[in-house]
């Protein structure tokens, strides 16, 4: 069987042969031979390219038939984001009005930065270790309406003619993420709201039951409190029961990322709004919504530079039992709690809805704090605990 790449050469050769044949017959001046030559060259010119195109089309149709059954959108792009192929699910997920078609640009719809960053991270990973996983996941938003997409990007085999291309498969998780976020927040608020009356109830009940020499006045006071707090607890429970629907535990779109890749992606796009960043310590794996996390780090670091006057900072990751502690250290004073709280509640650009840094951190079961460095009194730090990747935890366990 002739390899795919030889067909264009054969077709070009055949076209040249046909043209030469027609020219030689034309020069010979014989009308019959000239007509026959014209027909022959036409057949050769027509047949070979069409054979080539038919073969490619046949393969494309078979590929499309396979991809048609896939629920996720699949797009094949070259290194510049030009679309070479897309399956029908793309239209279903993104809608008819999007300019997603072969020859168009991916970045007409996708936000360019997260795609390019992810591609860069993936290439770095494969350069570092050719046997590394050539696939990675991330979440990003569409440019016009912020539709949140869970994307899987994979590099094609390095020995294929498509080696500079990448494959992007995706699904809409915007609504799901939004609903999960709302449910997550409601559940957390409900649990927090129950703790206060429960604390008062328990303290009052224990005072009545356990304290000796309780005066009649004190007893009446705590008994009345028990009744009052029980009613409050019932009221809050009823509210919680009516508000909460069935909680389905579904994970947010998190993926493993190597801290060096994350920090490199921040450092590489460092603009004048960020402090000069240096990395310190051993890198490790963490589990996060990569794009959201890089956005919040961008946000916090730019605030650190612009509002706190930090011109240079050290970034390090410190592995803990279940978490990885991302720490930013600088010479100067810590960020005041009220100021940090304000930064955490500012809306983020480049992400759908009214998401802020706190929302993203809470999805990572995290928060942030700033304090004076425990060893260097003239230095301060910002700490963000993040979930460790599973194999990071396994490595720590194996290390004992």
């Amino acid at each position, binding site marked *: 069987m002739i390899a795919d790449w030889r067909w264009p050469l054969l077709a070009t050769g055949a076209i040249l042969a046909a043209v030469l044949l027609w020219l030689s017959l034309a020069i010979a001046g014989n009308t019959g031979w000239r007509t026959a030559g014209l027909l022959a060259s036409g057949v050769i010119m027509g047949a070979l390219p069409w054979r080539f195109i038919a073969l490619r089309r046949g393969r494309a149709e078979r590929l499309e038939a396979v991809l048609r059954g896939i629920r996720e959108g699949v797009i094949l792009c070259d290194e510049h984001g030009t679309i070479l192929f897309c399956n029908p699910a793309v239209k279903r997920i993104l809608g008819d009005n999007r300019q997603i078609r072969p020859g168009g640009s991916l970045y007409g719809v996708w936000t360019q930065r997260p795609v390019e960053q992810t591609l860069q991270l993936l290439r770095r990973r494969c350069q570092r270790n050719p046997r590394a996983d050539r696939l990675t996941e991330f979440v990003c938003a569409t440019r016009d309406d912020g539709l949140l997409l869970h994307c899987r990007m994979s590099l094609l085999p390095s020995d294929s003619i498509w080696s500079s291309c990448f494959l992007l498969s995706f699904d809409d998780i915007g609504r799901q993420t939004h609903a999960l976020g709302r449910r997550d927040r409601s559940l957390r608020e409900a649990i927090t709201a129950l703790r206060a009356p429960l604390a*008062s109830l328990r*303290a009052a009940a224990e005072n009545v039951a356990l*304290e000796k020499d309780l005066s009649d006045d004190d007893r009446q006071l705590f008994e009345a409190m028990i009744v009052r707090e029980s009613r409050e607890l019932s009221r809050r429970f009823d509210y919680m029961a009516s508000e909460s629907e069935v909680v389905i535990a579904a994970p947010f779109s998190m993926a493993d990322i190597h801290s060096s890749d994350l920090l490199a992606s921040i450092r590489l796009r460092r603009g004048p709004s960020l402090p000069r960043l240096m990395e310190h310590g051993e890198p490790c794996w963490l589990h996060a919504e990569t794009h959201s996390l890089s956005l919040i780090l961008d946000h916090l670091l730019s605030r650190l530079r612009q509002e706190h006057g930090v011109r240079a900072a050290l970034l390090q990751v410190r592995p803990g039992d279940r978490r990885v502690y991302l720490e930013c250290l600088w010479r100067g004073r810590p960020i*005041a709690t009220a100021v940090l709280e304000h930064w955490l509640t500012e809306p983020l650009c480049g992400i759908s809805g009214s998401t802020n840094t706190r929302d993203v951190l809470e999805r990572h079961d995290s*928060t942030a704090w700033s*304090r004076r460095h425990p060893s260097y009194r003239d230095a301060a730090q910002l700490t963000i605990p993040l979930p460790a990747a599973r194999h990071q935890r396994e490595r720590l366990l194996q290390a004992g």
Partner: protein
Amino acid sequence: MAKHILIVDDEPNIVLSLEFLMRKRGYTVTTASDGEEALRLVDEHKPDLVLLDVMMPRMDGYQVCEVLRGRDDLKDLRIIMLTAKGRDVEREKGLSMGADEYITKPFSTQEVVTRVEQVLGGE
């Protein structure tokens, strides 16, 4: 001389129970219902320990803790945070911000008493 405890919480019922509990143990007790009042009462009474709620209007417990820990004249002051924020990471944050102990609501009264005695006894 009896040790002095400042109880800071915006929930009056829990303040009442904790105040009763601490007085029964022989402590002198002052109460505040928000962070700003707490800072004023710290200056006024120089307590040995603050039982500090985290979620309060105007100025939360972390902010109060930050102000208190920033003052050299209060380095002997002990702080126990009481909070409805039950996540582990919040506990880590409280201790990193300078609290000596962190108790999650709802708590057993005996647990609070034990922690108070441990923290004051450890001076």
